């Protein structure tokens, strides 16, 4: 699959401080999550990809365009929703979005049409003639999303899109992200502190710490691999149960109170567990796949 973002020894320095150090990765997922603690360099990485920061070493490529040489072409292909408030208070939403569309190269008529369309799409249709300064925080977030997608970018960069949103508004934002992903017309980069948001929407995750990549994870692949990890809770005399499972090739670890954690061998039939339990007259109270959550992955990465 052709890479969407390719970091090739990317380094950024502000004065004497190294912010990003030798980042190397190739990302090709439809939705890419960018995680890391505060000050890890997530926002700097995004700003560097948009050509806002000067590189101290290496380079990056977006859809094959080098950010050192073709930043104008890249900016044509990218939509950006910044983390902080970004708007012009004394403009109506429709004229603001239209201006942004025109700056992206759309002719005035097409820009006006698209401005109306995206405002309806994000759910601000009824409020599109109101001044942006009068919008609530949730509405401002949606207006920022509208300006980011008005020109139909191939890559949409969302920096903390659910910041400050109440649960229904957050759900709405997540739904919009899913819809845009499923439309197949754009790739998304989602930078968020909320692991749940990233877990719900992303296929690939890049974790940064102190300006370095500490973990890259393909969540889709991990989800498939995690099907081999099983947790069982039993009730009754479980003597010999773990040994019997081990005899079938499972790696078992007892966790006390009738709980067992195991790694199943390839091509293992789940009914074998039920059979062994029935032979010992053992009740199975719970059986579930023990999946590494994104939180586990993130915490492990932070220990590095």
């Amino acid at each position, binding site marked *: 699959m052709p890479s969407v973002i390719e970091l090739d020894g990317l380094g950024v320095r502000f004065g004497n401080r190294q912010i990003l150090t030798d980042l190397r990765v190739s990302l090709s997922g439809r939705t890419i999550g960018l995680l890391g603690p505060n000050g890890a360099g997530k926002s700097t990485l995004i700003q560097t990809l948009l050509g*806002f920061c000067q590189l101290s070493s290496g380079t990056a490529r977006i859809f094959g365009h080098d950010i050192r040489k073709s930043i*104008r072409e890249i900016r044509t292909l990218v939509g950006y929703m*910044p983390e902080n408030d970004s708007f012009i208070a004394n403009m109506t939403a429709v004229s603001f979005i239209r201006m942004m569309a025109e*700056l992206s190269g*759309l002719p005035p008529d097409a820009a006006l049409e698209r401005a109306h369309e995206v405002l309806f799409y994000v759910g601000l249709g009824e409020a599109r003639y109101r001044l942006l300064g009068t919008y609530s925080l949730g509405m401002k977030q949606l207006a920022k999303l509208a300006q980011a997608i008005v020109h139909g970018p191939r890559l949409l960069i969302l920096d903390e899109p659910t910041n400050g949103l109440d649960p229904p508004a957050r759900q709405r934002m997540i739904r919009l992200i899913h819809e845009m992903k499923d*439309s197949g017309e754009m790739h998304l980069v989602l930078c968020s502190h909320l692991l749940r948001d990233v877990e719900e929407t992303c296929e690939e995750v890049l974790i940064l710490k102190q300006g370095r990549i500490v973990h890259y994870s393909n969540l889709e692949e991990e989800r498939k691999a995690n099907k081999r990890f099983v947790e069982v809770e039993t009730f009754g005399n479980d003597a010999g149960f773990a040994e019997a499972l081990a005899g079938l090739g499972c790696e078992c670890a007892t966790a006390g109170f009738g709980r067992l954690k195991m790694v199943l061998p390839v091509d293992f039939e789940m009914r074998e567990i039920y059979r062994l339990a029935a032979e010992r007259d053992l009740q199975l109270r719970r059986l579930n796949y023990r999946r590494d959550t994104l939180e586990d992955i993130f915490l492990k990465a932070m220990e590095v």
Partner: protein
Amino acid sequence: MAVYKRTYKGYSGTLTPAWSRFMIVPRYSIARLLQSRFLVGFRILCLLFPLGCAGLIYLSHNLSFLKTFNIQAGNLIEVNAKFFLVVSNIQAAFAYFMTAFIGPSLVSSDLTNNALPLYFCRPFSRTEYVLGKMSVLMYMLALITWVPTLILFVIQASLAGWEWTRENLWIAGAIFIGPLIWNAILSLIAMAMSAWVKWKIAAGALILGVFFAGAGFGAAINAVVRTNYGTLIDLTQVNYTIWSHLFRNQDAATTIDLMDAWNALAVACALCLWLLVKKVRAFEVVK
């Protein structure tokens, strides 16, 4: 958009040429400025003086009027370089106040709510942004400075005949270049102040203050050090020196060399551009 069509779709239409995009910013800015009734009223006020001058020029060539009031031709008003210098000076004063009114909202409105990243994440550069914002002021100020004065020149030329026009054509050049320089320096100062001071009232006061403070400090330096070089920080005097040369005003009491005046102007422009470069950027590095 129909409700059933509310799904995301990309854009596959044509794009405008990149060179034309710096005109988008002034178009929207001017539209916003013209919503102000005060500004429209002030613009009308600024045109009253040139309108009166146009009437005077017409009457000075109207023989029946001159005959009626027993005025000799040429006695009513002498339309020459000095006349146009006076008109340009008065209009420049109006431009100064208009700048203090328009200038503060130019860049500060984008900075206050952090809108600059949204401009610069598109195929739109900082140079285009500054050019676009500057052209707003250049356009608004042109309409009250060199455009009406040039119209007065055309009226005079059409009434005075070819001989007068041929002899005084250089005045047209001075009418255009002099106010253009003044408008450019006003625009740059206004934008620099607007970029650094987000509070509009303070920015407006600072724009006015730059000229008053420059004149005050200039006079103080001249008095203390007993030199004329203090005048170089008085931009009104610097401009007066250049205009006197452009309009060939022999009676001008200039205290600085023309070359020094040009250099002072260049330094002022460079300083304003440096201030703009420091502030007009997609993000701010906090040290």
